């Protein structure tokens, strides 16, 4: 029985090889060939030299967004995890609910709020104040990222904090820890898996986004996602786009790898679960 049931994952493995590994191979192929002649070339990858400032900006904006998400998300997850079960379910549902509405429209709603002729500035000018430059800067892009990906931080954190054995907390209290020490020595270390998967789930989509920066950013805050998208959708150069995607992918694997190294958490099962 045990040995046979291994084969149950056969279709899945086949599927993933066909539609995950092979496509990545195709990306590699495009990245290493010339767009016109189709010959082997490294010039697409060498183009990285021109785009590293954009890579850097994308990474830093998403690091800030991820940190803000963590700072906002942890107290919220902690609060939810310590509510009554019925309330917990309700709050968890309320966190998930915004994710069901198209994130394009939610971002557009932020545009409507922040624009020079938007809701907030209309209100400010109507009470006699001067309008604020709320949109088309790095801050607005970070706000958009935090808003869109905050649930992805709260949910894994909540799952992990909820599962912490309360007896451990009690034991620490019995041994004379005050509440701050309990938090630092018990709750925080035990929620590391949740923090790790939360960071991954926010950082990865944030670093590759293109819609948020298109709508909330300015021409000066272009992100790497925008560049990749434009290679596939406007300027026909899939080879350059593939090369940049490849670099982005490697960079993310390195970032996630570094983080996992420091936490050495085996996060096989702490990823997103409801």
């Amino acid at each position, binding site marked *: 029985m045990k*040995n046979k*049931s*291994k084969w*149950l*994952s*056969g*279709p*899945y493995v086949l*599927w*993933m090889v066909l539609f*995950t590994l092979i*496509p*990545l191979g*195709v*990306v590699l192929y*495009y990245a290493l060939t010339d767009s016109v002649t189709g010959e082997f070339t490294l010039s697409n990858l060498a183009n990285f030299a021109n785009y590293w400032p954009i890579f850097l900006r994308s990474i830093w904006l998403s690091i800030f967004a991820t940190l803000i998400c963590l700072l906002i998300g942890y*107290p*919220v997850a*902690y*609060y939810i995890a310590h509510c009554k079960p019925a309330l917990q*379910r309700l*709050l968890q549902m309320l*966190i998930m*609910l*915004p*994710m*069901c*509405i*198209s*994130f*394009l*429209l*939610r971002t*557009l*709603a932020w545009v*409507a*709020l922040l*624009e020079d*002729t938007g*809701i907030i500035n*209309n209100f400010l000018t109507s009470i006699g104040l001067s309008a604020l430059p709320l949109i088309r800067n790095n801050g607005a892009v970070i706000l958009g990222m935090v808003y869109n990906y*905050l*649930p992805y931080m709260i949910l894994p954190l909540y799952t992990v904090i909820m599962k912490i054995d309360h007896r451990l907390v009690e034991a620490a209290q019995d041994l004379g820890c005050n509440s701050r020490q309990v938090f630092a020595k018990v709750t925080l270390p035990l929620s590391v898996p949740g923090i790790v998967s939360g960071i991954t789930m926010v950082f*990865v989509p944030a670093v*590759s986004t293109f*819609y948020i920066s298109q709508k909330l950013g300015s021409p000066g805050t272009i992100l790497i*996602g925008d560049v990749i*998208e434009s290679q*596939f959708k406007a300027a026909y150069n*899939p080879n350059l*786009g593939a090369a940049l*995607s490849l670099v*982005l*992918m490697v960079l*993310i694997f390195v970032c996630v790898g570094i983080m996992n190294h420091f936490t050495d958490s085996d996060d096989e*099962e702490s*990823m*997103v*679960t*409801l």
Partner: protein
Amino acid sequence: MRKVNRVFTALVFIFLYIPMIVLAVASFNKGTDIAVFSGFTFDQYKELFRDKHLLSLLGNSVIIAVLSSLVATVMGTAAALGIHSMRGRLRSAVMTMTNIPMTNPEIVTGVSMALLFAFVGILLRTNAVLGFWTLLIAHITFNLPYVILNVMPKLSQMDPDLTEAALDLGCTPVQAFFKVVLHEIMPGILSGALMAFTMSLDDFVISYFVTGSGFVTLPVEIYSYTKKPIQPKVYAMFTLIFITILLLMVVMNLMQARDKTKRKKAHGLQKEVGR
């Protein structure tokens, strides 16, 4: 401390719901400018139901979401069972493969699939590769890890003796699976399916790269709408979707709550019988 935290949590919830309020208010707006409320009207809703195109796109989205989450749930649950019985290097290899779509940026997944399909198109010498099937394949692919990662913990929490007991009591392995294992991991399967459904319904980035001319989902169309002056009936549509999902979630919540109390009662009864 807890009071401070409560206020903070409330503020975060307000932050999360501000855009929804903006959209909902805009759906009752007479004017087209989202930032200026020029009068209350239901016209946008009337417009919405007159627009067959928009409704059929919503239909496309739901069809893809239902089919992809169903296929992903079946295939993913089987895979989770298989992985559960694996050990050592094989297991970690398969788990790494599962994590690729999770750690890979959506844009790279979308791009890689688009390139694959274009490649296949060149091989088959056809120009009509992109469409319903490519969209479905892409959605199944990014849904699979969500199902697996939701089912796996339930499997490892399950008591292996349960299956043994069922086998001892004369069940065939297949019966034992359907009567015991499936029952035990059902919450994981359900949450996986729900997650997959949500992800698929809201997916824009990957769909954007793999849609062709014939079959378009709602988010992709919304993207092209947001470049033109957006028609307020779109707000009306999303207000309705929001309310529908809210109601669905409340119903499911109530169902779950009732289920739990029932189970507790049954549990109590068992204990008494045991005594």
